[in-house]
């Protein structure tokens, strides 16, 4: 749909140059409140459909639409939404209204109408010209239908909870964190009391924002137990989406306090529900597990997970998430003894963020311990705040190893003093031990002549006589096969879909939905 609108805009802008008369058109600015309400109504209709058909996929669609709605939220919109969609008898409404009214908005932004809204308005305009009378009758009918719809929505608890969720997000955006917390917790309580499967997704989002607010107010240590209890409930109810969300929240919570071991035990004792959970949750899970494994010295697994996380993350948005993932992935790759691609650091929007890591990487690549130390000193604080510091410290050995390797290939015979100087090590004695260790580990093929204090390298092996190329090839083939399998898996149809007999209308609906999903993958700012 967004694509459509882009096309349309493109067309329209084309027309602008041609015809002056239509110049005003693309700039159709409608009242932001109306635009938001239209968008909200759209979501509500989907909720209605989800509730009547008891299909969770419609609910996922609603949740995806939150992103779009979030930008349109304002005090007015929310008050109106509360009025239209929340029954006045609801026990929560008073509190929620109070929260919204407590917000002071500085400016009223003029929002460009979203595609649907402007289209609809255009449509109305066309009708305008065509036949006034017809339109009147139609409007009347429409109004009647609408009244019935609003009335129906009042009785659907999902609608109420959805509005409450929007309020929570709004409060979070406006930094009214305490209010947001109480709003979210009342949402959670209320949603739980219904015990409806269509409520699960709203509930899981509720938990997500609640945990986020608690984290921002520095209260995350208090919520762990509640999250654990909620996780158990979702697992018992086979609510996979909730399970995925809560598992991620738990892992995040543990990692925040550096409780890697607990996080690891939890991770090993649970399994991530891959069936229904969204891609974004999966990406997040992969990222957390990658971090945990990196700390636990399982670099290969960690690297795989982080790489997949980067790949699963939305490619257009979620820049922050991808940055973080790449930071870790670079370090883990270095720890594995590999040098990341140069292109990793020159990705759009990431150059500045990854610059410290580039320096580290260069130091490791050439085995320049001095450069490494300089980089560490220069960017230590950044690393600490990125929580990569402890991993980077481990890299020192790698730097030394690479340095030694270089020396080994360059010199057939070199004194340990020289080695010490080249590697900027502290003493010759240290150097001796380090070199000995490297020989022992098979990093270099050399011997130490203790009498002359020299390191003598043996003839360098031709790597193509070893099984190394085979190993490399295997690794790449395995990677390709894995990628293929994943792609095939992703293409599987959901169960119970009968594409054969769907009517034209259903097909349109499905196409629309799929396209929307594609778009939302791009514009998801969950991260």
């Amino acid at each position: 749909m967004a694509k459509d609108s882009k096309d349309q805009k493109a067309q329209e802008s084309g027309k602008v140059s041609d015809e002056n008369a239509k110049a005003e058109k693309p700039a159709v600015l409608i009242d932001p409140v109306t635009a938001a309400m239209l968008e909200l109504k759209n979501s509500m209709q989907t909720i209605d459909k989800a509730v009547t058909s008891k299909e969770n996929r419609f609910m996922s669609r609603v949740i995806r639409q939150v992103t779009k709605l979030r930008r349109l939220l304002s005090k007015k919109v929310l008050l109106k939404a509360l009025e239209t969609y929340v029954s006045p008898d609801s026990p929560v409404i008073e509190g929620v209204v109070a929260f919204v009214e407590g917000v002071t908005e500085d400016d009223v932004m003029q929002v460009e109408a979203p595609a649907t809204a402007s289209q609809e308005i255009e449509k109305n305009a066309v009708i305008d010209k065509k036949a006034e009378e017809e339109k009147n009758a139609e409007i009347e009918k429409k109004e009647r239908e609408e009244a019935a719809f609003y009335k129906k929505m009042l009785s659907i608890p999902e609608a109420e909870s959805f509005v409450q969720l929007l309020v929570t997000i709004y409060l979070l955006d406006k930094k009214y964190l305490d209010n947001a917390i109480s709003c979210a917790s009342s949402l959670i309580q209320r949603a739980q009391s219904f015990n409806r499967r269509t409520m699960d997704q709203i509930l899981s989002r509720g938990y997500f924002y609640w945990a986020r607010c608690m984290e921002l107010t520095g209260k995350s240590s208090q919520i762990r137990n509640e999250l654990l209890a909620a996780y158990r409930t979702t697992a018992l109810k086979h609510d996979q989406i909730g399970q995925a969300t809560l598992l991620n929240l738990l892992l995040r919570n543990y990692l925040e306090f550096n409780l890697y071991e607990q996080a690891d035990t939890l991770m090993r004792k649970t399994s991530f529900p891959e069936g229904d959970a969204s891609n974004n949750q999966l990406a997040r899970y992969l990222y957390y597990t990658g971090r945990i494994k990196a700390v636990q010295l399982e670099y290969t697994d960690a690297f795989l997970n982080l790489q997949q996380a980067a790949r699963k993350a939305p490619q257009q948005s979620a820049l922050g998430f991808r940055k973080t993932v790449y930071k870790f992935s670079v370090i883990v790759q270095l720890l594995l003894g590999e040098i990341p691609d140069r292109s990793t650091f020159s990705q759009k929007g990431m150059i500045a963020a990854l610059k410290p890591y580039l320096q580290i990487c260069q130091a490791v690549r050439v085995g320049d311990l001095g450069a490494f130390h300089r980089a560490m000193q220069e960017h230590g604080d950044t690393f600490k705040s990125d929580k990569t510091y402890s991993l980077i410290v481990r890299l020192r050995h790698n730097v030394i190893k690479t340095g030694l390797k270089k020396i080994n290939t360059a010199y057939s015979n070199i004194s340990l003093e020289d080695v010490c100087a080249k590697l900027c090590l502290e003493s010759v004695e240290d150097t001796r031990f380090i070199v000995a260790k490297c020989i022992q580990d098979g990093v270099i093929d050399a011997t130490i002549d203790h009498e002359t204090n020299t390191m003598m390298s043996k003839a360098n092996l031709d790597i193509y006589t070893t099984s190394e190329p085979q190993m490399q090839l295997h690794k790449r083939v395995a990677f390709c096969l894995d990628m293929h399998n994943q792609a095939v898996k992703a293409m599987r149809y959901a169960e119970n879909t009968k594409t054969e007999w769907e009517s034209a209308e259903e097909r349109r609906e499905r196409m629309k939905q799929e396209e929307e999903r594609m778009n939302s993958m791009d514009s998801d700012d969950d991260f």
Partner: protein
Amino acid sequence: MGFPAVSSGPLLASCRPLLSLLAENEHKLKQYALEQMDKIVDYNWAEIADHIEQIEELYEDDKFSHRELAALIASKVHYHLEQFSESLSYALGAGTLFTDQIASGKPSQYVFTILSKVIDKYISERIEKSEGGSDAEPIDGRLEAIVESMFDRCFSEGNIKQAVGIALESRRLDKLEACINVSGDRAGTLAYTLEACQTLVQSRTFRNTVLTVLVQIYRTLETPDYQNICLCLMLLEDDKAVAAQLGELIKRDDEESELMAYQIAFDLCGSDMQHFLLAVRSGLPVPASERQSAEPPSTAEGGEEKAEGDTEMKDAEPPRELTEAEKKLETRVKNLRKILSGETTIGIHLEFLFRNNKTDMLILNNIKSALEVRNSITHQATVFANAVMHCGTTVDTFISQPENLEWLKRASNWAKFSATACVGMIHKGCINSSRNVMKAFLPPETGMSSQPYSEGGALYALGLIHAGHGEGILKYLSNELKKIKNNETVQHGACLGLGLAGMASANDELYEDLKDVLFQDNAVAGEAAGLAMGLVMLGTASEKACEEMLAYAQDTQHEKIIRGLAIGMALIMYGREEGADTMIEQLTRDKDPILRYGGMYTIACAYSGTGNNSAIRRLLHVAVSDVSDDVRRAAVTCLGFVLTNTPEQCPRVVSLLAESYNPHVRYGSALACGIACAGTGMQEAIELLEPMTKDSTDFVRQGAMLALAMVLIQETEVRQPKVKDFRNSLEKMIKDKHEDVMAKYGAIIAMSILDAGGRNVTVSLTTRLGNKRMSGIVGMAVFCQYWYWFPLAHFISLTYSPTCLIGLNKDLKMPVFDFISHTKPSTFDYPPMTEVKTSTAPSKVATAILSTTAKTEARKKGKKDEDGKKEEEGADKMDVVKEEPGKDDTENKDANKSMDEDKQGGEKKKEPNTTTLSNPARVLPAQRKYITMPADCRYEPVSKKLWGIVMLRDLKPDEKAEIVEVTIPATALPPKEEEEPPPPEPFEYTD
């Protein structure tokens, strides 16, 4: 960074210190560790899980004093790890620590989960124990104790239904009794139990035990529920008890019990179990007059029936010198016998179907004119369609029209056989005049048969007329069978007729006669004989019969005979459930595909209407694995039979098979859907079947159309708009020159099924009380064999049951009064008659003069005139009272009126929200729930269920009751002027 924050929190982030305490030697330390752990296990389970062995060891350690605590923690950890069976066993080990939590006010999620596992496990163990016999391990006492306490809680909290459910599932009869005794609403609980027992209990043996218990409880009620008692007894097939119960009821001197006895008798009769009903009848108390005459009761019965004349319903002459009470009793016994013999029901239904016949002759004429004359298959189908549309109405105007007579003559050979049998279908239920009706076709009394096909067909027709109520005709038929020696066609008809008439009679003589025919090893006759043997021994599971039949089937060379025997064996196993398993096993493992085919139908018959999971699994397995297409088709079709009691499941079960690459499987799934969802108009079924009517394979289209017609039978456009589309597409298909003949055959029959029995019957495989209807299921099973042998399609007439609501007073007569249906008249109205399409003349007059004058006229004037005409045509003039308009079917009247309004006003006036229906009324299955008695009605029904035949209590017995005039169809009357003796006893055939 982490630790300060954590230590300020209420709980530890890590329980490693506690875990290390477990390694200590001191018990106190361990105990302390466990106590602390118990508090935090919900949050730190992941860590504790790494040390679960230590905790488990502590539980095993006899010396440790807090073993139960260890077990509780272990259980909780396993619960968090989602290993519920381990969790369960440790929870049991925790003893009171766990059980106390159940009793506490608000049990946690953990307790809830484990409790449900406890119950699940208990149920599965109980079932294993009851089925495995003595070698099964005894059930864990702790498990039992928890379940007991659950029962107690249910009782104290009043959750009786839950308790009943658990008691039934865990097969605890003592608890079941306790449930019912404890509950405040005993009748309600009993009803719930009875329903649950019939629908949910899978094991037949256990179900029977429950039923026995229920009967006992029903008897102890303050006002015993005789209806349910007898229903249970019928399900148990305990004829003596039923007879005693009925006897007791009629001996009481109040009208209430008498009516109740009649109502029960009608309900029993609806189940069609002939041998059971026979046994009940002979178990009834013998009236004084018969004792005086000292005749054996059976002949007295026959004579009595003969004397009474069928539907006249005259009370028997009071015998001399009997007391008032004895006379009363005698009348009652006679009435009861008559009801149990099915005579009354048949008579009433016949009357109903004749009176309300709304067949649209134009449809038939359209079919006839649309088809090519020479094609014998479509010709045969059209003749058959006529029979289906008029099934049981006795209206044979279509075939008696002169221009049609000529057309009919085109049927030759087996088509003639089939056409003659169709006459039997039309006259289904005319049991007192059957031979008169078929007179023209029956074999001559002396001399050689000259017309073997029509004679065979006539004998078959006699069977169809008498299906399941063959006392009057059996002797004649078996004599005929013996008489024919060398003509396989006549033998074929005679065998089928005999099988139908003697259905479920378990009559050994008949069986032997049929066996003789079988042993002649003649393919055509043998096939019918095999089938008939099954029909006669229907549902008896007679070992002797099974063995003989199986042995012969494996011996003979004729495929036809094997097929007949295979279906016969399936029928013998009808309703035996687990009792048929050996037979099923034997047949399904046979190397002959035809016997495996029979095996599938054995499953269908044995498990029909049970929804038994293992049966379904078995069928599904065969449906995808057998090498023979026939067997696979049968397996899928049979799913429909097993699921008849839960039609809503069927479309889901067969939906995948409906997309199979194999057309036979697709055909089977269509039919299965049609069988299970017959008469329901279910949306899912329609959605599944509709695309299949456009399948690329001709016979799949055929099956889909038949099935869709069965699903949509009697559906009105108001309720299901698809009906119209379906009718149109059928019409198009029939007219389409290029349509394949098989599909056309299906379309023609589907068209007739939609309007079957004068639009007053539905395909029903269940009885009024909701249990399975024997003749319906058997009829459907044999109907499915039309695939091999078209004349077997006639069996579909057995599945039809009139959709009526008929009230009877204690004299078994229909009083005049009204029911109220809380629906708009159009919702359940007859579909409109098709109009003759005329391009030029819009006026009615023009239509009337057009080609099909006679019928159109008849249609326009309504059926009164038709009656009159028929009377004139008939040999003897009946003294028919012209019906008053008030007595006419009001529903019909309303419809006419509204149609008129449509025409006049152009705009529809608002329809009334209720419809008044006068006795006897057409009430569709979906309409039943809207029916009530009017508030100020003179009569009051004895049964709560308002459909079928309902006995009425007269609240003003002193006033003279107005009785609905009986307009018995002429042909259904026994011949009077004829010098020929009346049918039942005339042919004392002696060699």
